[in-house]
């Protein structure tokens, strides 16, 4: 057999079958070069086996273990806290005056933007409208027939995100104004003025009820605020006079 260096390697590693091993041994007896190769590979192997182990960072084992744990799905890890946060924000925010004011301004624009007002009751008589609401369980405070040149046109119930409000339409001289009967709790000290969506929104309490005024000009809103208070005072006086 002539030199087959690869078989020398297999011989060193004890990886040859019986016949090949015998053939290599016979060859080695007469071949100094192959004997040298075998001796060198044996020595090299000893040195490689004696190489110091490469040590990992001590923390690697813990990191590997951590990486094995089933990961919490994205939905639970990220979306759930966000949803919970939004829910808390919504629950807290829905009674907040700026939130209610913004909703009323949005509803005002929504109704008055329609080609025909979506009124459920058409009337310029406050008594008629008040009676209509009373039949459906909503007690209105005393509302004026007109103020600042704007007159009562009609009314309806409008849905906000979290509640249903009584919506009275006033119009005149190309301007619009909404008087809202707002049920449920709204947090504001005594009265509240805001300008969401380029509208003037006033929240006030009349006869213990929350009333929202939404208009396009501050003067109109101020006129209605005076009218509501005055109407209330006049009615109170009349009621007192009637008793006597």
């Amino acid at each position, binding site marked *: 057999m002539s030199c087959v260096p690869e078989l020398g390697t297999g011989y060193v590693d004890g990886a040859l079958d019986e016949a090949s091993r015998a053939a290599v041994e016979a060859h080695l007896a007469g071949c100094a070069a192959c004997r040298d190769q075998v001796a060198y590979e044996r020595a090299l192997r000893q040195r490689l086996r004696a190489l*110091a182990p490469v040590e990992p960072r001590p923390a690697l084992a813990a990191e590997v273990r951590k990486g094995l744990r089933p990961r919490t799905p994205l939905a639970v890890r990220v979306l759930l806290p966000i949803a919970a946060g939004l829910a808390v924000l919504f629950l807290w925010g829905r009674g907040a005056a700026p939130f209610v004011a913004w909703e009323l301004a949005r509803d005002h624009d929504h109704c008055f933007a329609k080609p025909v007002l979506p009124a459920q009751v058409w009337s310029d008589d406050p008594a008629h409208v008040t009676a209509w609401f009373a039949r459906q369980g909503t007690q209105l405070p005393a509302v004026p027939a007109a103020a600042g040149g704007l007159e009562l046109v009609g009314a309806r119930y409008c849905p906000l995100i979290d509640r249903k409000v009584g919506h009275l339409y006033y119009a005149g001289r190309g301007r619009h104004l909404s008087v809202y009967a707002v049920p449920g709790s709204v947090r504001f000290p005594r009265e509240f003025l805001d300008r969401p969506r380029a509208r003037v929104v006033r929240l006030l309490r009349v006869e213990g009820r929350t009333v929202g005024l939404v208009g396009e000009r501050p003067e109109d809103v101020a006129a209605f605020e005076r009218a509501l208070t005055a109407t209330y005072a006049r009615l109170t006086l009349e009621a007192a006079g009637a008793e006597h």
Partner: protein
Amino acid sequence: MDRDERFEAEALPHLRSLYGTAYRMTRNAHDAEDLVQETFLRAYRAFDRYAAGTNIRAWLYTILQRVRTDAFRRAARSPSTVELSGEGPAVPAPQEALARGGEDIERALLALPEAFRTAVVLRDVEDFSYEEIARILSVPIGTVMSRIHRGRALLRQALAGSRP
């Protein structure tokens, strides 16, 4: 013993030797850690398919090699990635090797082309048989013998002048 406990008891004790091989494959600690992390993650997912009582060490090394091959494929697709194979200049030897005077042979080993380096490491450092190496690398036994032979011959050249 549940699955996690079995994995902990049977697979994780091989972390140290897997890391050593991963380091000698990748020649840097960062890639070696990534390789080991990914290897254990895949092993953990496939642990149900591993037949208990068989050669878990060879099984883990097979996964290690597969992860390494996949990393190469990704690197080949991504032009911004530095080529990981071939001759590497000035590879820092592990501190332990320096301390024990094994610097020259460790350096020479790390300078081998990866195919030969891995074959020599699996045979001479990790002491796997040719059959096991053939399975780990998915190559015929003849190829294992040829790679080990070539690797040792290159090491001899590199170490010429120093003691064998």
